[in-house]
């Protein structure tokens, strides 16, 4: 049983010192000596404010509303626990909306303390204030909620006995012990209640119940505005009627208090479309008569029970077990949001030695001492491929597809819009693509690997080489052009040569690039060069020339492969005035084999012998 305006006074008290919350732990009327949630006011940080639009609330109202919403959330969660199949009843707040401090406050609602147990229990037992400065790191035998407080960063918690219960104040700030603060709160906000309760409440008991039932009838039927004017008046009338003259001051305060309650309830009604909330407040007011019924002997009762509790506390104190508090904490957590489920797995795990593929971790002990591998480069290989590379494959596919679509001049049939057909067309496209890759692969020499990237890389590299070669040949062509002007040689020979040039092997290419160098050497020391070469090369050179009746010349020659050799041969052939049809060359075991096909141009008459001589000359000079 609490005075009507107790909540407001509690609110005023905690707001005046700007602490995070105030809780009144009241002794249970059914279980003497057990402290449970009586009333509370939350004054701390708020994460998500869920207010209805357009209703301006003053800070008082916001705070009261929030505290009430938290209480409702707790009740709804409790209800959900009782009947798990019904999904969480609609509460204005959901657990996700809460700050840590609010969560702490909410979880506090589930706690009960025996006298001497926990901070409130001790305060009650000793009948004196307890000031806890460093709540999170305190012994959980003293402060059972220390884990919770840690998560909510509650630093200072104060408990002091009040009426027939304990008031607890808490803040996230560190406040050193100051008993005058408690005294100040008591005198300015709370003692009024203490005093008022005994005098007023007993007297107004029946009226209060009447007033409550009045609300019951009116709230759902009459509009908010009407309640706003009628019910506070009514209740204040009820109180006034029972006031003794010298308590006028008190009455006024209480009147203020009640009217505040009423207006606030109306607000709430408006916020949540009346019905739900008003019925809630109805049930609350209806509960109060029962509590009140136990009051008449209030003073004696509390005194007696307090004594009983003090006796009991001595023995109980020692029984407080930190583990049980942990257990309680866990139970609260698990019951609050979901019906608690203890493990079903016990069965399987108990006998897992016989059947399970898994072995107990302890058995695997020795390995556990190894350091974690930190080779980041190769870890999670497949997972990374799935997440990073597979999307890339799809994207590449999309790009290619789009290109192809553009190529098809944007013609897209209805069928292709259909996804399954897309799969088929994609597969066809893919097959074509693979085919082209194979073709490309066959065209490019020196393919190192079979994958597509390597094929493309090698093709690019090859193209670059070809371009470079073309440039070199063009330079060379200019040179031969100049020479040709003096020598009157056919011009197109070099170009033709270049067409077939790249049938040659890598060695041939190298000799090409070294062409200029070797030439320079030739010019500097022609004699030494030719002499030294002549000795060995004569026997190795082998030239075979055939001329048929159509004046077609076929030359097959073999000579040691040397830098610039091929070019010399070409020069030699051109000096003979032969029109080359094709040139084939290959290199085997350091020997260069060249096959030339040519036609004698017009009037030019060259004998087989001359061709042979010229080419042998060329070969031996190199």
């Amino acid at each position, binding site marked *: 049983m609490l005075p009507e305006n107790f909540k407001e006074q509690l609110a005023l008290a905690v707001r005046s010192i700007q602490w995070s919350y105030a809780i009144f732990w009241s002794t249970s009327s059914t279980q003497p000596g057990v402290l449970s949630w009586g009333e509370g006011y939350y004054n701390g940080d708020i994460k998500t404010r869920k207010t209805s639009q357009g209703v301006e609330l003053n800070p008082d109202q916001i705070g009261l509303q929030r505290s009430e919403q938290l209480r409702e959330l707790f009740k709804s969660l409790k209800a959900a626990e009782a009947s798990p199949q019904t999904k969480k009843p609609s509460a204005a707040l959901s657990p*996700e909306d809460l700050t840590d401090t609010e969560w702490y406050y909410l979880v506090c609602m589930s706690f009960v303390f025996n006298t001497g147990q926990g901070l409130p229990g001790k305060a009650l037992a000793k009948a004196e204030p307890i000031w806890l400065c460093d709540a999170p790191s305190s012994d959980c035998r003293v402060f059972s909620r220390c884990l919770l407080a840690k998560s909510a960063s509650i630093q200072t918690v104060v408990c002091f006995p009040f009426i027939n219960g304990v008031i607890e104040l808490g803040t996230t700030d560190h406040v050193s012990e100051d008993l005058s603060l408690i005294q100040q709160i008591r005198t300015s906000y709370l003692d009024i209640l203490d005093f008022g309760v005994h005098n007023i409440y007993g007297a107004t008991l029946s009226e209060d119940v009447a007033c409550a039932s009045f609300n019951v009838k009116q709230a759902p039927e009459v509009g908010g505005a009407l309640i706003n004017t009628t019910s506070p008046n009514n209740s204040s009338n009820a109180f006034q009627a029972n006031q003794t003259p010298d308590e006028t001051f008190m009455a006024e305060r209480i009147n203020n208090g009640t009217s505040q309650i009423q207006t606030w309830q109306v607000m709430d009604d408006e916020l949540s479309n009346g019905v739900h909330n008003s019925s809630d407040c109805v049930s609350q007011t209806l509960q109060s008569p029962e509590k009140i019924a136990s009051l008449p002997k209030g003073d004696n009762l509390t005194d007696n029970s307090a004594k009983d509790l003090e006796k009991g506390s001595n023995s109980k104190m020692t029984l407080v077990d930190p583990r049980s508090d942990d257990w309680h904490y866990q139970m609260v957590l698990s019951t609050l949001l979901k019906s608690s489920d203890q493990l079903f797995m016990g069965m399987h795990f108990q006998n897992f030695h016989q059947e399970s593929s898994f072995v107990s971790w302890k058995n695997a002990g020795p*390995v556990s001492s190894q350091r974690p591998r930190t080779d980041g480069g190769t870890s999670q290989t*497949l997972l990374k491929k*799935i997440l990073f590379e597979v999307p890339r494959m799809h994207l590449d596919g999309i790009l290619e597809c789009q290109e192809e679509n553009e190529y098809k001049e944007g013609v897209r049939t209805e069928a292709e819009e259909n996804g399954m057909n897309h799969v088929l067309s994609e597969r066809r496209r893919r097959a074509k693509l693979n085919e082209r890759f194979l073709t490309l692969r066959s065209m490019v020499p020196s393919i190192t690997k079979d994958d597509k990237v390597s094929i493309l890389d090698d093709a690019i590299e090859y193209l670059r080489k070809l371009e470079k070669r073309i440039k070199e040949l063009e330079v060379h062509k200019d040179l031969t052009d100049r020479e040709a002007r003096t020598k009157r040689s056919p011009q197109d020979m070099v170009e033709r040569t270049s067409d077939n040039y790249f049938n040659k092997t890598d060695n041939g290419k190298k000799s090409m690039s070294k062409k200029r160098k070797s030439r320079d050497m030739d010019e500097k020391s022609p004699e030494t060069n030719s002499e030294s070469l002549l000795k060995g090369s004569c026997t190795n050179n082998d030239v075979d020339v055939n001329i048929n009746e159509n004046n077609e010349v076929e030359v097959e020659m073999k000579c040691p492969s040397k830098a610039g050799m091929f070019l010399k041969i070409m020069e030699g052939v051109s000096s003979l005035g032969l029109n080359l049809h094709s040139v084939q060359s290959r290199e085997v075991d350091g020997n260069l084999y060249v096959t030339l096909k040519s036609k004698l141009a017009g009037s030019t008459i060259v004998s087989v012998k001359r061709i042979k001589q010229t080419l042998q000359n060329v070969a031996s000079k190199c």
Partner: protein
Amino acid sequence: MDNTSQESQLQSENSSTYESTYPLYAMAISSSSTSSNLQRIAVGSFIEEYTNRVDILSFNAETLTLRPNPSLSFDHPYPPTKLMFHPSTPSSLLRHSAVDLLATSGDYLRLWEVRESSVEALSLFNNSKTSEFCAPLTSFDWNDIDPKRIGTSSIDTTCTIWDIEKGVVETQLIAHDKEVYDIAWGEARVFSSVSADGSVRIFDLRDKEHSTIIYESPQPDTPLLRLAWNKQDLRYMATILMDSNKVVILDIRSPTMPVAELERHRGSVSAIAWAPQSSRHICSAGDDAQALIWELPTVAGPNGIDPMSVYSAGCEINQLQWSATQPDWIAIAFANKMQLLRV
């Protein structure tokens, strides 16, 4: 048994192994069993080419046999990033009990009807109105409370919620700053996702404007790769980081601070799965070739949390499934193998 292909199976008392001809990644266990008390298991190939396969196996828990159904194999464009059977057999969608719905993700979300002896492509979900293509999908989750909903996560930073019965997009949210790598449903309208931006966010379809960041990886921008929401206790979810041996356990009520970090793997963790019938057990597997089962303690000790049991596979474990229909069995995939382990 038609074991004509090179696919073979090995078995022992407490496990059953299926060996495929190609590496396996995606894997799903059906929530319904066929007439002959067989459990269907779908495995997806990982071949770095266009044509990939999804094979349907039948698992007989009594004889411990895993048998491939060649007639139920089908092609999939590129490797499927995830496979999932319908969370509960919907009588409305299916004609008879031997029919299963299987969803796959890759370039699109696809639904397949797995029948007695054939698989038919049911539908393909493309949320791009302008082009034939939508951004590739990294993962998806089927809402088990409201099975008409499937949420997909994409590299284009969005999550898309499909109404698969109507075949329409219910909503598409820009969920993260970077690629979204995984998505998990909590309730009918609440889902969570992890991303390359290193955050875990929770979304409520009733309030699409806002999301709540539950966790951010300690080194900024360390991607979070996988997410598992504890279906037995929705306060908890688990995630894994890139190149990390940790399993991070989160409590959605205490954002930013993980309630536990499980650090006994000796290589990076690649897969996690909560126990289907217990709120406090989770299994994790990774590069150290181990699958660890953890029991979350009420209060963590100073030396961290030890797993309760361990299984060692031959090589890096890439996939892990713990099905509600077969809570006694954990399925893992490594290299070319899929293995069912008795818990």
